[in-house]
């Protein structure tokens, strides 16, 4: 990380940690929601943007994380902290199982198999009445007093988000991350030089699902509720959109995408019932005018010298995914 970037990141962190002291409570809550959504989008982008996989039903792992947290607390009577650690593990296991079947397929087939496996989990959660509460979901999950107030929940999600982002960043800069991106850009060549494509992809899926599980557990901290919508494919598509919206070839793009989506539906939803129409139009404008996402667009403006090299990267990626 360059010096100036490091400085700006620090300033940003400082600003964000001041938010609860300045802003009214509702904005604290919305910012915390953005953090959770951003972590989910970041985890998805690891496999979509950097890994080039059609991870169409990522929301399932988020939902599993949330459901496991709620179930362990409500039904098994576990303390929150134990549930908070076990939930991402459960997501990871689910991610491994689903991923194991999926990585054998490519592109659309990967996505489709994942949608059907994910829908299976959704259907079970939706139907297993006695355990999951069916379509009503589970509510009133008890959260320790330490992190239950709006402000403390904010700080908690913020810290977890920072830690997760730091790990994700480190992973992407590691040899593993480099290989993953090379796989996305040119799978045939990688296979030719002896890289085990599937194993790398599976590892990426497992890592991504772990962080999706963390995001799911954080969701329970903020809302104290879980419900089947968290496992439904519509949510997965929304998260997918966040990555594309923010800029899926950038590191922080999905955070921006999540911020835009959450703000849109909170604030546009207040003024009109047609917010999906607004979203649809924004998306179309974006496809035509900002194909690299908002973040990609700004980076192009700001970092001219490097952008050309990156442009090549992108061209490579699009050829790869054809």
């Amino acid at each position, binding site marked *: 990380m360059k010096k100036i970037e490091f400085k700006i990141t620090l300033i940003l962190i400082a600003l964000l940690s001041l938010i609860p002291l300045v802003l009214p409570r509702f904005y604290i809550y919305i910012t915390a929601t953005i953090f959770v959504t951003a972590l989910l989008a970041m985890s998805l982008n690891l496999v979509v943007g950097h890994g080039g996989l059609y991870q169409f039903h990522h929301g399932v792992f988020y939902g599993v994380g949330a459901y496991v947290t709620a179930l362990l607390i409500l039904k098994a009577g576990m303390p929150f902290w134990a549930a908070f650690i076990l939930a991402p593990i459960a997501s990871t296991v689910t991610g491994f199982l689903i991923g194991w079947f999926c990585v054998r397929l490519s592109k659309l087939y990967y996505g489709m198999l994942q949608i059907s496996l994910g829908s299976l989990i959704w259907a079970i959660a939706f139907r297993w009445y006695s355990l999951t509460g069916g*379509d009503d979901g589970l*509510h009133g999950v008890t959260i320790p007093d330490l992190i239950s107030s709006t402000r403390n929940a904010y700080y908690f999600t913020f810290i977890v988000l920072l830690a997760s982002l730091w790990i994700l960043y480190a992973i992407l800069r590691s040899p593993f991350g480099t290989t993953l991106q090379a796989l996305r850009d040119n799978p045939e060549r990688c296979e030719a030089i002896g890289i085990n494509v599937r194993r790398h992809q599976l590892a990426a899926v497992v890592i991504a699902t772990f962080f999706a599980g963390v995001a799911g557990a954080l969701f329970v901290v903020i809302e104290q509720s879980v419900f089947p919508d968290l496992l439904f494919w519509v949510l997965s598509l929304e998260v997918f959109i966040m990555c594309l919206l923010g800029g899926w070839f950038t590191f922080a793009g999905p*955070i921006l995408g999540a911020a835009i989506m959450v703000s849109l539906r909170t604030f546009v939803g207040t003024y009109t019932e047609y917010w999906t129409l607004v979203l649809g139009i924004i998306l179309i404008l974006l496809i035509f005018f900002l194909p690299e996402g908002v973040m990609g667009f700004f980076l192009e403006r700001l970092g001219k010298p*490097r952008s050309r090299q990156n442009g090549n990267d992108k061209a490579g990626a699009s050829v790869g995914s054809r």
Partner: protein
Amino acid sequence: MLTRRSVTTGASLVMVAGLLAIFLGALLFQPGLTYARDIKVGIIDCYSGPPAVYSKDALNGFKLALKEINKKGVLGKKITFTTRDTKFKVDLALSMAKQLVMREDVDVLAGIINSGAGLAVSEAVAKKEKVPLIVWIAKSERITGEKGHRYVFSTGENTAMAGKAGGVALSKRPYIKYWIAGDDYEYGHALAKAAWRNLKKLKPEVKLIGKSWWKPGEPDLIPYITSILAAKPDAVIFCTGGRSMTNIMKAIKATGMAKKVAIYIHTATDHAVLKPLGAEAPEGVMGTMDYHFYYPDTPENRAFVKAFRAAYGNPPGFPAFHGYITAKFIAKAFEKAGSLDKEKFIDAMEGLKISSPVGVIEMRACDHQAVLPMFFGITRKSPEYGFVISSDIVTLKGDEVMPTCEEIMQARKGK
């Protein structure tokens, strides 16, 4: 190598700009603090998507009552309201409820058609933020039953009441072999449980020969009906709601089921269900409702229907009735409380009685559930209205169909 190394530069600039915008926005739009202001009711409901028919009807009922109330005012103030759309999504309901409480500083929350959202908002917003919530359509008995608490009220009939009404009415009929079928979600199951428990208690010789459940909104119900008919029950209790109602009524008509077995469906006699079906509505289906615009034929009801028709062009459905009495309850409770204090409002609500189009209605103190009568009837084509309506109506009094306070307390302790 990370694709872009200057990521953070861009990220930071954009986010700083975004944050500044939020800061400014928040400062500019921060609603004024409490000076002589109106009584604010925050309404969260689904105004887009299939259930909007009901929520809009409820809102119209609420608005009609406010028009009458605001002529005189309450505590020298007006009652105003603001609505938020939940799109039938629980997470949006939570976020909108929090927005109304934290940002708009509403005095009372009302609305909600979706039971899942009702329970979530009740726990995570009403109870946590200590703001009264009045649920007006969501029918889960857990809202004021097992999961009830000081801050949640209901002005609509719930599954326990509807189920008990069905059980009581069916126990007077000769059927022995029953089949239960319905939507596989909270509403369906709760209704089935309540109906069966009460029927069995009143008439121990009844037998349940089978059950089937389907996905809410399942487009094709004919396979279920064929397998039910194959088992030859005397009567079938369908526990369906929302958009499944149209589907099940159509399937009943298509298979000619109503001619072969007795059928009971709560809300089968609902105008909102029967009217769009027109001639396709099956006759001879038994149903219960807590409100009909044509029954009871009292001056109060006639006046309400007339005013509603004049304002909105169509007769009120049961949600309009719920919305209407909710507004009445809110106004009267604030008057009784004498201030905008939320705790005093709740104390005033408990045991409060208001007059309504169907007579006096009480807000039961023990569980915060409005005591509503139930009208049991059979669908029949009406020459007067040109479509199918409820006929041979029998009124089941509120205290006859409500679970007792002891039962409620038992359920709350049991959780």
